[in-house]
C-alpha cells in the first residue's frame, strides 16, 4: 500500500529546485549534482559563494570538500562568506538545508546546528562504508526510511567526531534532533561501529525546527547501484516527497 502511495505521489510530483553551494575548495558538488539532475531528474543549479542572493530554491545543499582549504578550522571561513548569511536567512525562514560532511561542519560554524566536529579519534582521515541507523524517520529528510532502519552510506572525513555538552545533548534528545547514529549492520549502536568517536554515535542531526540537516556520511555516494550502495538515494527522495 505504501509502495502504491509512493507511485501515486511520484505521478503528481513537480520538479524540485535544488541549489548547491560552491565554495572555493568544495569538491563534492558535482557528485550531488549528478544524483539530483541525472538520477532523480530534478532541477539543480550551482550557487557561487560570492553571490548576494538566490531565488526560487526549494532546497539548499552545502556539499562536502575542503572549503577554503579547511584552513583556520573546518568550515570556519566558509561561514564568513557572503552566501552564508543568505543561507542563514533561508534556514531561519524554514527553508530546507542539507549540509553533507564539510557542509555539516559549515552549518555548525554558522550555528544553524548545535555542536562541533572535532578531529577523528584516530587522528586520521577515514574513507569507508559505514552503517547508520535512522533514529527519526518523521522528518523531511528521512520520511521514506523505516524507523531504526540500518542503512549503508560511506564516510570520508578527518573531522567528523561530533561533540556537544551534556545540557545540549539532553535538549537535542528531547527534541528528537538526532537523525542518524553509527551502528553495525544489524542496527546496534556499538562502540566498534563508531568510526570517529562521535558522542552518542551521532552521524547526523537536525535543528530544532527540523528544516536543517547536517550529516557526515555522503548520501550522494550511495545513490547508484553501480557504486555498490543505494541507501542514500532515499534521503534526496524524502526531500522531494516532503516538498511536494
Amino acid at each position, binding site marked *: 500500500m505504501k509502495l502504491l502511495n509512493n507511485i501515486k505521489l511520484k505521478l503528481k510530483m513537480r520538479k524540485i529546485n535544488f541549489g548547491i553551494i560552491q565554495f*572555493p575548495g568544495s569538491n563534492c558538488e558535482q557528485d550531488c549534482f549528478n544524483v539530483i539532475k541525472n538520477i532523480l531528474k530534478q532541477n539543480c543549479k550551482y550557487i557561487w559563494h560570492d553571490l548576494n542572493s538566490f531565488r526560487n530554491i526549494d532546497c539548499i545543499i552545502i556539499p562536502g570538500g575542503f572549503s577554503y582549504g579547511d584552513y583556520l578550522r573546518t568550515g570556519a571561513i566558509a561561514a564568513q562568506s557572503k552566501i552564508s548569511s543568505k543561507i542563514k536567512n533561508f534556514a531561519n525562514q524554514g527553508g530546507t538545508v542539507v549540509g553533507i560532511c564539510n557542509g555539516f561542519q559549515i552549518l555548525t560554524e554558522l550555528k544553524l546546528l548545535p555542536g562541533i566536529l572535532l578531529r577523528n579519534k584516530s587522528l586520521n582521515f577515514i574513507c569507508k562504508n559505514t552503517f547508520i541507523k535512522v533514529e527519526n524517520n518523521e522528518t523531511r529528510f528521512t520520511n521514506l526510511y523505516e524507523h531504526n532502519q540500518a542503512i549503508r552510506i560511506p564516510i570520508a572525513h578527518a573531522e567528523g567526531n561530533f561533540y556537544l555538552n551534556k545540557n545540549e545533548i539532553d535538549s537535542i534528545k528531547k527534541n528528537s534532533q538526532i537523525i542518524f547514529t553509527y551502528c553495525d549492520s544489524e542496527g546496534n549502536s556499538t562502540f566498534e561501529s563508531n568510526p570517529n568517536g562521535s558522542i552518542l554515535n551521532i552521524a547526523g542531526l537536525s535543528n530544532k525546527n527540523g528544516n536543517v540537516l547536517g550529516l557526515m556520511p555522503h548520501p550522494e555516494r550511495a545513490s547508484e547501484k553501480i557504486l555498490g550502495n543505494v541507501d542514500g538515494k532515499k534521503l534526496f527522495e524524502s526531500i522531494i516527497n516532503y516538498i511536494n
Partner: protein
Amino acid sequence: MDNLPFALENGLTEKEYKIIITKLSREPNKNEIGVIAAMWSEHCSYKSSKFYLNQLPTRGKRVIQGPGENAGIIDIGDNQCLVFKIESHNHPSFIEPYQGAATGVGGILRDVFTMGARPIALMNSLRFGNPKKNSTKRLIKEVVSGIAGYGNCMGIPTVGGEIYFDNSYKGNPLVNAFALGITKKNKIFKGRADGPGNPVFYLGAKTGKDGIKGAIMASDIFESEKNLDKPTVQIGDPFKEKLLLEACLELFNTEGIIGIQDMGAAGLTSSGSEMASRSNNGILLDLDKVPKRDLDISAYEMLLSESQERMLLVLNKKNRKNINKIFKKWNLDSTQIGEVISKKNFIVKYNNKVVVDIPVSILTKGCPIYKRPIKKPKSIKGLKKINNANLKKTKYDLKNLLIKLLKDENICSREWIYNQFDYMVGTNTITVPGSDSAVIRIKGTKKGVCLTTNCNSSYCNLDPNIGTSIAVAESCRNIIASGGEPLAITNCLNFGNPENSEIMWQFVESIKGLSKAAKIFKTPVVSGNVSLYNENKQGSIHPTPVISMVGLIDDIKYLKNQWFKNEDDDILLIGKLKNDFAGSQVLKYINLKHKITSPLTLNIKKHLEINNFIYKIIRKFDIASIHDISEGGLLIAIAESCFNPEKLIGATIDQKMLNTDNELKMFAETQGCYIVSAKKSESTKIKSFAKKNNINVRIVGTVGGDALSIKDSFSLKVSKLYDIWRQSFPS
C-alpha cells in the same frame, strides 16, 4: 674558470663545465650556472638514461601523445582521451616525508591538468625498509598522510596503489605518484611557446624560497642523515592547487591558448626553456614582474625555486581579456612576465639588467648523453634449476605457511593505508581498492577505465630483465582479470647510482625486459620518469621499475572482481603451476637453502594467449569472479578471493584435482595463472572452450561454507584468516 667552484657546488662536473664554456664561447655567470646545472641535472636531463629510454616502444594505434610532453595521452574512442603519468618524489620524501609525498601528488596532478584534462584518479607506489622499526613507521605514517592530505583536498580519488617493504629501502624510501585525467581529443594543450611577440603569463601561487635546487638535490645520493637539506623540499598547498585546477580548466574553454606547462622541477627555468625549445623559439622573462612571496628573493633563487602550484602560459596576444577575469574569480595571480622571442635564447631580466642570456638549445639539448659503463654483477650468476627431490625433503606445515604468508607485510591487507585516502569522491570508482585493478566508470558512457601499478623488486633484483617483464605481465593480468583490455604504460624507473656499472647494468637489463614485454602485450610506454641515485652508505635499492598500466572495459557489464560469490561454484585454475619459487614470498618461511634457488621464468607469448582466453571467456560465459595469481601463489589468491567484503565465503581445494607433484606448488608464483569461479554448468563450457584454444584449465575446488579447506590437509575458518590478514599491517 673563475666560476668553476660554483659550478661544482651546483652539481656540474668539471668536464661538463668545460663543455658549457666551449658552447657559450665564454664563462657563464652565476645565474647562468644555476640555470644550466638544473637543466643538466640527472632529474631534468635524463643524461644517464636517455640513450636507453629511446629503445622503448612508444607507438600504437591508440597513442596520441608519447613521451616528451608533460604526460602521455591515449585515445579511448568517442572523442575522449586519457592523460596519465607517474613520477617519483623519493628524495624529498625522505628529507621531509609529509611535504615530499604531498608535493609529489601535486606535481603529477599539474602534469595532467596542464594538458587540458580533468584529473579523475590517483594511485601511488611506495617502498620502505623494515616496517617493524619505529623510524619506518613514522615515515609511512607521514608519507601516507601527505598523499591523503593533498589528494583528498583536491577531491580526486586515490583508487589504487602498492606498498612493499624490503631492507634495501632503508634510508631510501620510494614515493611514486600517478595521476590520470580525461579530456576531449580536440581539447589537448601542450607545453609550447609559438609565435614570437605572444605574451608569457605566470599563473598560480607566488614564488618563494622553497624547493631551490630541488632538481639537483634529487640527482644526488644521501651522504648522511644529518645534513639533510630541508629548504630543498617544496611546500604544498592543495587548496591553492584546487583553485589553480578549476581556473585552468575554465581558461581552457576560452580561445587563444598557445601552450601551458607547470613549473615542476627547476621551476621557471625548465618550463620557460622547454616550451621555447619545443617551438624552436626563444623566451624573455622579466623577474621583476614575478609575483613573490619573499621580497628579498634573488634572481638565482627565483629561477631555481620549486614553489608549488604555479604554471607558465603562452597566450595569443589578441586573447588576454579572459585570463584576468577567470584568475581573479579564483583569487589567483595571473601576470604577464615576458614574451616569446624569435632569437632562440633563454633571456632573463632582473632590475632592468639582463642576468641570463644563453641559447635555449644549450639548456634543453646541450647536456651530454652518457652511455655509462655496464657490468653484470657476480651475485646474480649461478642460479640453479629447482629440483623436486630437494623440495620434497624440505619440512614445512602447509597450514602454518598460509597463516604466515597472510600475516606477511608484503601480502596482508592494505586497508590501513587506503582507508586514509578518499577513494570514492567523484562517484566513479566502481571497483574500490583491494581487488586486482581499480576501475573508474566514465559517466555518460558504458566505458570503464582500469588502473593498476606493479613492481616486484625481489624478482628484479634476481633478474632485472625478466623481473621488469613480469611487472608488465602482472599489470596486464590485473586489468584482464577486471574485464578490461590493457592499453598503455607509464613507468617510474627507480634505481641506484648510475655511475656504478653494476647499477647501470640493472637499468639496461630492465629497459630490455620492459621493451620486450610492452611490445608483445601491445602496451606502449607513453610517459614516465627515471629516478636514479636512490642509494646511501648502506647500499642501493633493489631495481624498482614501477609499471603503471591503464586499460579499458568497452562495456562495464563485463566488469569482474576477485571475490567468490556463490555457494557450490566451481573454482578453476587457468594456466599451469610450475616450480616457480625465485624471489617468491614463501621462500622467506621455508628452509630451501641457497643451492636450489631457481631462475625467474616468464613465457610472454603463452601468457598473452592465456590473457586473450580470459578476455574471451568473460564475454562468452557467466563468470562469478576472476583473480590473478601473484605474490604468495595459488593459496593466497584463493584466500583473497574468499575475503569478499560484502560477505566472507569459504572454499575447498582438492589437491588431487590440482594434480601437483608437490603441495608447495600451491605457493609457487608462476606467471600467467588465474583463479576463476563459475557455476558448474558454466565451468564445463569453459573447460571445453579451453581445450579448443589449447589452454590449460583444471577444476581444483568448490566455493562455499565458512572455511578455507585443503582436502586431507587442513580447514580454517575464513573469518579467522580474514582477521589475521586484515590486522597484520604494521601501522
